[in-house]
């Protein structure tokens, strides 16, 4: 029996998976939109593995979009692309957002099937249940459904 509270990477209040009929919803929180994006990226990796991902290799990427919500989907899709073509998993993220432009750094390592035992591969981030917003407590959250 796997209880979600026992999952090592899921730190209460940093990120979460929320239910969707067939796919998976993910949400990150942070003091800034950039931090919420970083945490949501951790949630994306946790769709695939709960094992530790060593930050051996750094990959830099840029993306842009007309608004923060579209930028969030761009960010997740950019990570999905890098994971797919490099056959890597990423466990640490740094994001800077300025004027609708995002600069991100992903730290990770090549997939190790034995050690990471990866489950579902994300196909793409969707615009469904997409929300980037400031919550009542002042924190930012970033969420959407990811197709797996």
């Amino acid at each position, binding site marked *: 029996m796997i209880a979600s509270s026992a999952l090592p990477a899921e730190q209460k209040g940093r990120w979460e998976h929320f239910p969707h009929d067939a796919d998976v919803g993910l949400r990150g929180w942070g003091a800034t939109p950039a931090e919420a994006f970083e945490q949501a990226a951790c949630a994306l990796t946790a769709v695939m593995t709960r094992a530790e991902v060593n930050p051996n290799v750094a990959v830099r990427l840029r993306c842009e979009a007309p608004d923060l919500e579209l930028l969030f989907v761009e960010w997740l899709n950019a990570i999905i692309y890098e994971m797919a073509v490099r056959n890597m998993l990423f466990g640490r993220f740094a994001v800077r957002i300025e004027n609708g432009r995002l600069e991100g750094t992903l730290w990770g390592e090549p997939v190790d099937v034995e050690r990471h035992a990866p489950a579902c591969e994300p196909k*793409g981030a969707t615009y469904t249940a997409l929300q980037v917003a400031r919550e009542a407590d002042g924190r930012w959250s970033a969420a959407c459904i990811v197709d797996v």
Partner: protein
Amino acid sequence: MDPARFTCADGTTWRVEPSGTMRVPVIIYADESLIRDMDDKVFEQAANVARLPGIVQACYVMPDAHWGYGFPIGGVAAFDPDRGGVISAGGVGFDISCGVRTMLTGLSAADIIPVQRQIADSLFHQIPAGVGSESAIALDAAEMEAMLAQGAHWAVARGWGETRDFERIEEQGRMAGARPDCVSDRARERQRREMGTLGSGNHYLEVQAVAEIFDTRVASVFGLAPDEIVVTIHCGSRGLGHQIGTEFLKEMVVTAKEAGIALPDRELACAPINSEIGQRYLGAMRAAINCALANREILGHYVRRVFAHFFPDNELRLLFDVSHNTCKVERHLADGKWRDLFVHRKGATRALGPDHESLPAALRPVGQPVLIGGSMGTGSYVLVGEATSETKAFSSACHGAGRALSRHAALKQWSGRKIVDDLASRGILIRSPSTRGVAEEAPGAYKDVGAVVAAAEHAGLARRVARLRPLICIKG
């Protein structure tokens, strides 16, 4: 959902008339219990589809429906280009041309059981499955171009498949009108090392035995007999389709606004069929269909290679290969007139009735095989298209059991290890690189596939021919 919000004439047709900005009704085919178990979002999403420009007749929803992104999974919608109709990247989904193929082995369960474990191990070894698995095939630029244009024909020309398969594949194995020039470099890069891979999630390869025959005449035309072994593959266009879906969704969100299309949900991003971007998506999406057809042909070849090792005198013949995430141009009778419509099926299977011109001669007297994937514990079904399906839902039927529980909920409820052990004790061997992936795909996370196909039959969408029980399941 509360059945009271619908009018129901015959027990399986649930209808809501258009209101507000809905252009057409929503019609859901299901029994009352399936309706009750569906999330309200299924109706909300179907009603949103009914608001899109140029939609014809109704937004139809199949009995296995659950809420998706944009369109409900199990949604069917046709659009008329002459009445401002649209094409929607969200209405096809990320896994373009995801589908099912079933191959006949001519073997019986008694032939398989003594070597069941060895076959399971050999298939798991031969077929790249799951995240991090690597294809033995790497495509250079010229090969990529040829694959995108020629589909399964490309695979067969390279020795991965058989010419006689073509007539048993939709579009005879090659989608016409594909435009590789509309496929981005990033989409190509994602596919370069992914040909002949199964993927993950709900994709699988199963060795199954025919457990029950419902229609002896059709079963014999299909080549299905009690206890016979078949092999079924469920997968799609892999990274290429995912990237095309991602890129066109993004572009259509912007262009829809410019074209004055009000999107009730951004995930419904679409473009007029008669627009530059609409045509470009159509060309790219068709190239992705070819990628899926080539991919399933290669996987079929790998299966043949494994079976040839154990049964050297045996041939595997293709029963059928059918996609359930597509947009196809088809001629349908709508509002009393024959029209060329752009039929979106997202998690719905084309189900052509008898005498349809696109069926091969051997199948024409009975209709098209409709392949329904169940869950790894319960089994799958082979149905046959019904003539009545044309007026019911543009010749469409369900595509699977449909999920009843989220992955999240499944993970909380089941352990992958225990599922593998329980199924093994029932004679079903699971091979997967991820026990968590198995837990997320637990048989209990799916609806009762028997109820889904019974509802499809009652509604006149497709008729049951055979039930298949799994013996081996390779999960990504």
